[in-house]
């Protein structure tokens, strides 16, 4: 049909970068554009410029909360934390253990349990029996006045996995709580920003069953400097069970 069309489309300079960003290219043309982005610096810069120009239009797109299942599916697909070669089942896999902990702290929500279980990655679902050989350490991170437990932290030393569970309390607006390992006589080591839900993280080198941990209040997204900058809102020491 193009033969009888008016040639409105002709006589323009190459606008491929803009057309790519606008989204009017078909699948094959987009694939070619992507190859050019990877191989031609000038074209990549042109695409970046068009993105900076056109993407602000998303301001007009209404935000829609995705269902919780989306994050759960993402968490399951993240690269699993490093596992020790010895993958015998331990306390870690025991739902009974977590139920016990729930009772013990009185604040571990069922939702957090789900996150803990999901966060472990693709593993057999059936909780095996607790093993006496598991090396677990637990800390209750209390507020500086010792009046309230802000986080419960559980370390599986064999697997080098740490679970951090918030145990209630208001989360400050516009600040991020950040977890720190406080090695004796050395600067604190960041272990990441804490979400509102239970979090499974790989234990950093130097973290033992007797380590001291702290949580500081940092700018959103975490300390910009890599060292704690805000007040300590919770602290405590791991103790082996």
């Amino acid at each position: 049909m193009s033969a009888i069309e008016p040639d409105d489309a002709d006589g323009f300079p190459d606008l491929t970068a803009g057309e790519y960003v606008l989204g009017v290219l078909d699948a094959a043309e987009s694939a070619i554009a992507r190859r050019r982005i990877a191989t031609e610096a000038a074209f990549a810069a042109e695409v970046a410029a068009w993105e900076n120009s056109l993407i602000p239009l998303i301001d007009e797109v209404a935000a829609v909360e995705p269902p919780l299942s989306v994050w759960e599916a993402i968490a399951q697909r993240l690269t699993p934390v490093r596992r020790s070669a010895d993958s015998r089942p331990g306390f870690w896999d025991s739902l009974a253990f977590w139920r016990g902990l729930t009772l013990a702290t009185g604040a571990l929500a069922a939702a957090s349990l789900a996150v803990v279980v999901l966060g472990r990655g693709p593993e057999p679902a059936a909780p095996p029996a607790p093993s006496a050989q598991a090396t677990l350490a637990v800390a209750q991170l209390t507020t500086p006045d010792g009046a309230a437990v802000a986080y419960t932290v559980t370390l599986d030393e064999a697997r080098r996995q740490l679970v951090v569970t918030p145990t209630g309390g208001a989360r400050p607006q516009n600040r991020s709580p950040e977890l720190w390992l406080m090695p004796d006589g050395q600067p604190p080591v960041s272990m990441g920003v804490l979400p509102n839900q239970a979090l499974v993280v790989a234990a950093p080198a130097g973290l033992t069953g007797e380590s001291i941990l702290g949580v500081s209040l940092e700018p959103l997204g975490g300390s910009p400097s890599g060292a704690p900058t805000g007040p300590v809102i919770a602290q405590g020491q791991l103790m082996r069970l």
Partner: protein
Amino acid sequence: MTAESDRAALSAALRRVAGGDQAALRFVYDQTSAKLFGICLRILKSEIEAEDVLQDIYITVWRKAGGFDESRASPITWLAALARNRAIDRLRATGARRRDIGLAGFDAEDPSPSALAGLEAGEDVRRLQHCLAELEERQAYVVRTAFFEGLTYEALARRLETPLGTVKGWIRRSLMRLRVCLEA
């Protein structure tokens, strides 16, 4: 919270994601997933497809956050461009099927700016809206429809019942005028 501190927090979080920090990814997700889901829904018009693509987007963020360059784009621009690309790819992959089914219920969505849009918008948004307003009404409509729905030239031509060459002319003329206006 200001746009500036938002941007700084997201940039910092993306740097941490690049270093393998899962909690930082969760932060990025909490801050941006509703917007990116809205973008995916608008393009894909299917919650199931949009949820699936949203997953892929954040898995890509997890793996490729190192590619984010603060000096080239704001974090939300980087994330939104990634989201649009993924959603558009999915649309192209499923488009052949969907085209035949028809999406009459969605076609009526008006891409004109709402009265409230831009009320709290940043400088870049106001500038773009000003430049779009300078276009002929029909051309601005076509640009908006292309942007929000991720339609190809062919799909736009079908939608508007207008010859392909004419639609290409509208878009290319609009892009040229936008470029001139935005650089002014």
